[in-house]
């Protein structure tokens, strides 16, 4: 199963985004089951690696793909998933995007 997300810069200025918070489904995706309970994902990658950045010009977008984001032991049922981007550094550089973004929920089902 694959989740695809797109971030758009619909502002009039260029923004720079730290991509570490999007480094994998465990950091970037939030999943709820049919009862609204969170589906726990495996632990995220160890932080502290070389940071990567994306610069988005006004109107530009960046796509992200999360393959196999549903753990193999997930029980059958209906779920919903959304992207969550969270980045609030203590001393951001000018042009760095900071804050929290969430996407709309997207539904999917797991079958045996």
């Amino acid at each position, binding site marked *: 199963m694959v989740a695809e997300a797109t971030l758009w810069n619909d502002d009039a200025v260029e923004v720079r985004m730290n991509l570490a918070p999007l480094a994998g489904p465990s950091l970037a995706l939030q999943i709820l089951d049919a009862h609204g309970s969170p589906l*726990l994902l495996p*632990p*995220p*990658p*160890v932080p502290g690696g070389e940071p990567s950045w994306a610069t988005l010009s006004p109107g530009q977008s960046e796509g992200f793909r999360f*393959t196999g984001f549903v753990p193999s*032991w997930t029980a059958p049922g209906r779920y919903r998933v959304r992207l969550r*981007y969270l980045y*609030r550094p*203590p001393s951001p550089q000018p042009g760095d995007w900071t804050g929290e973004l969430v996407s709309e929920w997207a539904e999917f089902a797991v079958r045996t």
Partner: protein
Amino acid sequence: MSEYGRPGLRALAKPERDEVVEPGEAALEVTVRNDAGEPVRFNRHQASHPALVLQVRDERDRPVLLAPPSAPGAEDLVVEELGPGQSVLLRYAGFLDRSLDTGTYRVRYFSPYPHLGGTEEAPLSTDWVPISVHSTQAFRPGVELPQWPPPFPRPPTWSVPLRLSGKLVDVLARRLGFLACQGVLEQEIDEQRTETISNAPPGSEAWNGTYGWRARFLVRVEEASCRVSVTIRIRLVGTITSGQRSAWESAIRDAWSGLFKVCANRQPCCVNGFPIHVAVQFVTSGEHQVVNVGTSTTNMGNWGATDTVDVSHEAGHMLGALDEYFTVNGVDYGLGRQADGAIMNNPANPPAARHYDLILQAVRGLTGGAGCTQPVSAMCG
């Protein structure tokens, strides 16, 4: 009605006995017949290995793993011809392990390989046939075997097949095996793990949260080699070269093997303990974990094809180890990738004894002893 595999080949399966049997007594007959007008090549010897051609499912449609086939030999290279109308009868017995639970299972012959009758597009397959088994335990734990007083002092508790929750290879052989230190115990492990990361510094807030997974592996204790072998079966999704796959295998084996051992109390066969060896085995079914191949390692289920560092950390999660950076379950570890951090903090460094705790717990459960984890260079006791 059976299905055709390669053009003209048809297979039919039936249990040898209709009544309920003990798992080890279950037998199946498979007839492979050539209905084509020309000879068909067929490797009867390979087809006689149940693990190569039989599929077994339980009542919940879960695959039942069979014992591995014997090592291939020259006979496995012999391919014979089945003439038009000719058939071959294959008999499979003892393919169900004696530890199988009571119930009804279904079994079929299935192969997508040409020399075994099928193709990828048209595997040779029989219908599923039911086999009902009733599992019994030949010896109750703690009961003295009749006419078996050992000629020397009674063995310590460790070696007696008591209180074992895992699979016994053979009770009688194990008693004999103890006498000759040939005992083998193994068990599948499947444990839920959760961790809550908190106190991530500003800029890494995304790491805060609760995570969950299942630690799954096969643990095997071998007296003859004084060894604990841990196998993680992994099914890959995606494209990877054989070289990259081998690099993963080597990285994980080298990161986790030969560093620590289990010192099992009162174990006369291996007084200096059981060194722990960890290996990953790539499978197409019956996996413990699914790993998607990508460009970078982002969690336990997504590995970078060229990564040989972080995959060892992720294997640690598969073995039950928790992360050790920021605050995890209330314990403050500091930043990730510290120079002197162990593997669950810094993937480039080796593991610590605590990272084998689930393996140790499994060995204790199998052996009925206390035991502890020590560096391989340390003396047990």
